Every structure is written in structure tokens, then in C-alpha cells.
């Protein structure tokens, strides 16, 4: 087992934890936590391939910084949606947000 595989395994562990959170949790903030964990797993993969793979360090850092920027935007909009949903319904349980089905 080489060192790259250790980081890929770590990334897969974080991805699995994140996917579990997205599927199993019903609280919207917990789901946002899980999405952030998944995004960070992707960033760890990029960093590992930069260190041990063929990706250049500068290129990897640039890509990861873009990912962090997009994740920041996603978190800001997601939290604003959660606040708005809480204001409208008093709860942030995604099971109860089904108005668009009708």
C-alpha cells in the first residue's frame, strides 16, 4: 500500500460519512454539514493527487481554492434558504417541505 492510497481511503471514508448524512438525516442543517464533508473529501483527493500523483502543486491549490470558493457560496445560499424555511414553517425538517410536489 503506497501513501497515495492512504489518502484515497481517507477521502472515501469522508465521502461515505457525508453520503450517509445526506441520506439519513432529516434536519436541513445536518444535510448541509454532510454536503460540506463531501466537498472536503473531494478537496483532500485533489491535494493527495497533487502530492503523490501527476497533478502540479500550484495547479492543485488553484483548483482547490476554486472549490472552497464555490463551497462558501453554496453554504451562504443554503443557510439563507434554511433561515427562510424556518421563518415560514417554524421547522427545518426536510420531510415536511413537500409543497413543490403539489
Amino acid at each position: 500500500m503506497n501513501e497515495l492510497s492512504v489518502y484515497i481511503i481517507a477521502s472515501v471514508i469522508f465521502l461515505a460519512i457525508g453520503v450517509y448524512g445526506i441520506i439519513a438525516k432529516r434536519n436541513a442543517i445536518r444535510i448541509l454539514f454532510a454536503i460540506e464533508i463531501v466537498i472536503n473529501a473531494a478537496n483532500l483527493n485533489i491535494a493527495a493527487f497533487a502530492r503523490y500523483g501527476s497533478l502540479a502543486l500550484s495547479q492543485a491549490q488553484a483548483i482547490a481554492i476554486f472549490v472552497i470558493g464555490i463551497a462558501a457560496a453554496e453554504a451562504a445560499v443554503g443557510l439563507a434558504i434554511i433561515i427562510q424555511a424556518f421563518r415560514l414553517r417554524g421547522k427545518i425538517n426536510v420531510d415536511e417541505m413537500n409543497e413543490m410536489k403539489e
Partner: protein
Amino acid sequence: MDFIVPIILIIFSSIAAILSLESRSLVYGAVSLAIFFLGLSLFFFYLGLTYLAIFQVAVYVGAIAVLIMFTVMVVGEGQRRKRSVPLLAMGLLGGAIILASFIMGISYFFSLPNPSMQPSFTLVSLARYVMDNYGLILFILALLLTSAAYGAVALARREVEETA
């Protein structure tokens, strides 16, 4: 092959990630998520991607984790408990550890030899690389962040109630 540090970091970050999803209180979950982000930045430090680690701490721990905690407080899902002495002591101890590590880190960086010893990759070169190769993407990202901030404010602002 040195696997000890990555494995310790994997265990540390995995526990923090699981706690962020499974803790009973959302406030503790948000704190665990911040610790997970910190663990990822340690991964980046260990891999030699120093600037990415600094960005990770600045954006995720400094901005997103605090924003999430603020939202948790606003939504009111956190458990309000009476201030207990053990929790206060733990908080003070954690704060002291963070402060000590911060001081040690700063003193370490100041004790390093002249940065010109490593001219191959600096923050300036990273910025130049990004501007030269990813200028358009950077511009689009800036627009995206601006529109996201505007959208977040528009979504979260309190609507003026119409009076009959």
C-alpha cells in the same frame, strides 16, 4: 513509509465528522464540523500545500463554521443549558490549548530562515499562476460569490409585513 500521522489525522477527522452528524445538539455538531475542517487543514499542511491549508482555515473555520453556528443560534435548535463548571473548565482548557498552539505556530514561523531560501513557490507565485492561467475562472468565481452574497441577503432579509 510513514503512515502514523495520516492515520491519526484520519481517525481525528472521522470522529469529528461523525460527531458533527450524530451529536444531539446542533451547536456541538457545528463545533465538531469546525474541528473536522481544522483536521482537513492539518492534512493539507502535512501534504505540503501550505497556502491551501491557510485558505481552508480562513474560509472554512473562520467563515463557514461561524456562519453555520450563527444560523444554528438563529434557528434556535441548540440546547440551552445552565453553565456548568466542568464545561466551563473544558472550554477554558480548549481555548488555552488553541492559544498556545497559535503562539507556538507564530513563533515557529518567525524562527524560520529567510523565506528567500525557498523561492520556488510563494504566495506571489501562486497568485500570479492563478491570474495567468485561471483569470477568467477567477472572475466568474468573484461574480458567483457576489451573486451568492446578494442572494443570501435577499433570501434571509425580513419581509416587511403589510398592514391592512
